[in-house]
């Protein structure tokens, strides 16, 4: 009976959905080892496209640019997002708090073309009026990415802040710790898993973003998605298959490590009886 009830409609849909999510990526990985130049015709096993990939200077430069932007953007996003989350969860309901929480959640759903367009027009205006930024490039992409990633961090961190037991912080303050000291010695260690999660989420969002980067970037700063997009627009290429495979493997590996660490720390914090 239990076997039968397990094969319910929703379980079947779950596995069909998983197949739908993973089959295209699996096929992509398989075809990245295709000898043939034609992406869809199997010409035997060969890792030669990986070699080609590592000789493509344009792609390597773009990877480096993307990694730098993502690193700085996610760091800034964690700072901004955590501060915003703190305001959203700890401050009294007020006009200022409401506008802040509306502004921070808006980029979550805003269509990217609108965000990208509006930021580009802002940068052009600023350059006109203030002479800064002189030209668009890594700095402007960094600002744009920090802004929209901060929203995701704020959501992740505020969920954690809400769960926290306030009495620990109050105890620290009663014992004479300054608010700043309380924050760094008590609050930050307690919310550190969500800070790490927010940072990683921002990092992958920034690495992945094409539309906003295309609007806010200048000639000197081409990110990886921009290179991939312009090459994919020309048609499918086996080099992109190899690149895609590497990205899929890296992300899966990082996700697996994070999941494993999270599970281990969860086990530790549970009482031994469990």
């Amino acid at each position, binding site marked *: 009976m239990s076997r039968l009830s397990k094969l319910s409609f929703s379980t079947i849909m779950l596995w069909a959905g998983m197949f739908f999510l993973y089959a295209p990526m699996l096929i992509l990985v398989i075809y990245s080892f295709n000898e043939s130049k034609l992406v869809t015709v199997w010409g035997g096993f060969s890792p030669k496209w990986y070699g080609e990939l590592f000789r493509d200077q344009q792609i390597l430069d773009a990877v480096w640019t993307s990694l730098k932007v993502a690193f700085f953007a996610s760091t800034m996003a964690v700072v901004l997002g955590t501060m915003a989350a703190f305001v959203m969860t700890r401050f*009294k309901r007020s006009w200022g708090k409401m506008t802040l929480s509306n502004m921070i959640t808006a980029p979550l759903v805003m269509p990217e073309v609108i965000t990208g367009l509006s930021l580009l027009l802002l940068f052009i205006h600023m350059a006109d009026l203030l002479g800064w930024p002189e030209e668009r490039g890594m700095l402007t992409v960094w600002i744009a990415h920090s802004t929209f990633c901060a929203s995701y961090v704020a959501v992740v961190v505020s969920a954690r802040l809400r769960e926290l037991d306030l009495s620990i912080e109050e105890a620290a303050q009663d014992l004479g710790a300054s608010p700043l000291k309380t924050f760094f010695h008590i609050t930050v260690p307690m919310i550190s898993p969500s800070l790490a999660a927010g940072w990683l989420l921002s990092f992958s969002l920034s690495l992945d973003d094409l539309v906003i980067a295309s609007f806010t970037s200048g000639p000197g700063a081409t990110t990886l998605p921009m290179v991939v997009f312009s090459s994919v627009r020309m048609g499918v290429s086996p080099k992109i298959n190899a690149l895609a495979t590497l990205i899929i493997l890296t992300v899966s590996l990082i996700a697996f490590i994070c999941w494993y660490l999270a599970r281990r720390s969860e086990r530790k914090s549970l009482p031994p009886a469990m």
Partner: protein
Amino acid sequence: MKRPLKFRLPKGQHWIIGLPYFWLLLFFALPFAIVLKISLSTAAISIPPYESLVSYADESLQIMLNLGNYLLIFEDSLYVQAYLGSLKMACITTLGCLLIGYPMAYAIARAPKKHQGVLILLVMLPSWTSFLIRVYAWMGLLSNNGVINNVLMWLGVISEPIQMLNTNFAVYIGIIYTYLPFMILPLYATLSQLDGSLLEAASDLGSRSLNTFWKVTLPLSKGGVIAGSMLVFIPVVGEFVIPELLGGPDSLMIGKVLWQEFFNNRDWPVASSLAIIMLGLLIIPITLFHRYQAKSMESDL
């Protein structure tokens, strides 16, 4: 009024509220004001390619608001069709994601507690690997000599390839594929918090499982359905990459038109007006999403 706030954060409170506030005002709110301003200006052949709203000549300050861009958009059937096309695309794909995502989220929420984390990770994992690459994977699958056509021909189902790439069908598949995780996550969040005793009570009282689903489970997960649908619907309206890569010349979507007006035609005022109207269309779904967000935050407290 100010005292409780001061008690918690006597020092540095201005910094904590000030920095994110200032940043968001500068890089989120102000840009929209600029888009609004440019949407009311006239296109010109200059750098930047539009005329200033305010002019001062002969000791008179003139503010010229040009509504021509908006009139143009409403008169030209191309733009109207692009808006309608985007809305239709967003409605159909949201429904598709809901139909596929709800049973999946339900199955995950019903799975043993220790498996739920892994299953949610498996659902979210694709959305962390590049979005562009997942769209690209479908290009290889759907093309005329792609995997799907080859398999179907080998099976003898079809004798010649079906044109799938560069059609609206491909865009539907691509959007449902990329946005499915965003539907499942909020649905799972509400379904996993569902009180199991309510379902037990319903079945004790003799309700069949399908009836229980319609009368108990679905109404209780309304918040998740709204949040998930809005998380899909709103970005899809402005989608540019998927119709550009998978769609054909007839898949007209407003994000694509905006992009072309801005980068190819360099008509900044019209592009800005297109963005403002798009935002106007999305005000209701965005408010719905915000209301849900605010509600779920308050219920957590």
